[in-house]
């Protein structure tokens, strides 16, 4: 490894090398100093906006952090954009991550508003209180869970019991439901999704709190609605569920009924069927705050109940809260 020839380097003049190295060092030092001055100037120029309150509480500083449900993230974004257009001095930031993520952030005090597409769980309330937070719930919109299949699938209607059997693994072939001879591929959202938890409680367990049925182990837990959509569109074996706002025209929506007797009415999900209660898999969409909201957060939540905001809700495919 060590070259035995290194002692045969030409014998250069030491002073020449010394002069060159000194020149290089001085040049580098000046560059370093220039860089330091530049950094100092840039950081001092990036001072906070003047004219805001001096206090550091988020809600007196017209800025809000809004984290949580992926089902609600587009809705929250659209509302935030509209509010910022009407009130240019405000500053709202929205991100997804799942209802579980949002509530966890609220408990960890890293967000002002948590979006959730499911009710907060009792363990989460206990965790929040242990951290000194009393979560307050606001229902901001309603949503239908649409059951979707590939457009080439002949099945158009299912009962809740059949859905429960499909997802718990009791029914494994479309033939058993009157369809083609194909294996059923079950698609679901990840466990951190409020949609997933809602589906588990209301469809798999049919609302029974003591039921311990779980999704079958071969249910695909896909990370987002787009992935579910891609698989539904291209795989004729697939069945999935997602919020009505995420259903695109190239998917087939299945009509659902809760009852088993006789010749029940199978209902398609829509604003009307959600609000009049006939669609069985409908849910409320929540926003949670840490304690009673004050200041800017209170103003923002108040704005969400105005007709202007509720119109955004229905534009995005959700169901607006009727006059409150």
């Amino acid at each position, binding site marked *: 490894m060590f070259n035995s020839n290194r002692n045969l380097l030409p014998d250069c003049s030491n002073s020449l090398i010394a002069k060159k190295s000194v020149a290089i060092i001085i040049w580098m030092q000046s560059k370093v100093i220039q860089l330091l001055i530049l950094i100092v100037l840039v950081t001092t120029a990036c001072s906070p906006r003047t004219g805001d309150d001096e206090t550091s509480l988020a809600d007196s500083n017209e800025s809000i952090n809004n984290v949580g449900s992926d089902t609600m993230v587009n809705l929250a974004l659209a509302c935030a954009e509209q509010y910022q257009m009407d009130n240019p001095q405000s500053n709202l930031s929205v991100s997804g991550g799942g209802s579980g993520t949002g509530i966890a952030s609220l408990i960890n005090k890293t967000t002002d508003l948590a979006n959730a597409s499911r009710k907060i769980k009792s363990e989460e309330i206990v*965790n929040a209180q242990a951290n000194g937070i009393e979560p307050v719930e606001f229902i901001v919109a309603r949503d239908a869970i649409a059951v979707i299949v590939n457009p080439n699938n002949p099945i158009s209607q299912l009962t809740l019991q059949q859905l429960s059997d499909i997802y718990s693994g009791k029914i494994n072939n479309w033939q058993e439901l009157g369809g083609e001879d194909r294996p059923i591929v079950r698609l679901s959202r990840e466990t951190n999704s409020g949609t997933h938890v809602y589906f588990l409680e209301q469809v798999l367990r049919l609302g029974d709190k003591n039921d311990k049925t779980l999704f079958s182990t071969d249910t*695909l837990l*896909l*990370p987002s609605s787009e992935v579910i959509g891609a698989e539904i569109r291209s*795989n004729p074996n697939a069945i999935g569920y997602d919020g009505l706002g995420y259903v695109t025209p190239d998917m087939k929506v299945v009509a659902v009924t809760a009852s088993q007797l006789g010749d029940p009415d199978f209902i398609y999900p829509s604003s009307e069927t959600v609000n009049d209660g006939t669609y069985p898999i409908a849910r409320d969409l929540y926003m949670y705050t840490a304690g009673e909201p004050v200041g800017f957060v209170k103003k923002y939540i108040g704005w969400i109940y105005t007709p202007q905001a509720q119109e955004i809700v229905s534009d995005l495919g959700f169901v607006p809260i009727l006059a409150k």
Partner: protein
Amino acid sequence: MQVPRIKSESLITGLIKVFGYSAILFVVLIFYFLISEGFPAITEVSFSEFLKTRWYPIEDYFGILPLLVGSLVVTVGALIIAVPIGLLTAIYIAEVASPQTKEILKPLVELLGGFPSVVLGFLGLLILSQYVRQILALPTGLSALTGALLLAGIAIPSIVSISEDALDTVPKSYRDASLALGATEWQTIWWVTLPAAKSGVLTAIMLGIGRAIGETMVVLMVTGNAPMMPTGLSTLINPTRTMTATIAAEMGEVANGSTHYHVLFFIGIVLFIITLIINVFASTFVFRRKKRSERILS
């Protein structure tokens, strides 16, 4: 090494030493953080719970076995595809290809290695999984096989680059001697050059394994994330869930300090230990002291 007498020399030597040792420091710190966050999992959840076969953390089912199997199946599948292809590609580029072909091929392979993995995952989801489903008549294309194929695609450039460099450093005298003794070109490559470059090739394969087992985005999008236990030969074509995808998908939702949080760090520890074992195993091969006869004759 001689002790340097010029002051700036000893300063630089000291600085380099600090940077060198800091690498060890970072590894130790990471390990310490993993252990401190992951160890409570063993006290909060009984060890036998980890050995169960059901992973459903929101209802306190913490069986890690399906995740472990998932990672292993996908990695082994990727290696079965990547090692032969990678090695043979490296041999072709280093030994057989003409200089012009070599000049085109080598940069192209390195380009493939520069692909962001999330793009590959997305392409796999939209395109590869459909073909896998149609060609193999599977219920769904989101399976361990698709994951293994994409991971092989990610591991091959690493294996090819480093193996090719290793084969290049074998002295020409080895090949000349073998050919002079009457061996054919392929016999020379397989029995003389490749064994001589053994340590480099093994390093390349270890790097490939490391990339495959640690890859997150690709397996998150393409394997279906279904925590299933193996069912014989069909395991490769069934959906599966890897440890890395589990951590990526679930870390966002856990409340800091909850049992789920600690269990996720425990999975991180398991991953760390697996990678450590692979690296130690590789080192014992690569840095083996030469036999006395090899040292005398080289």
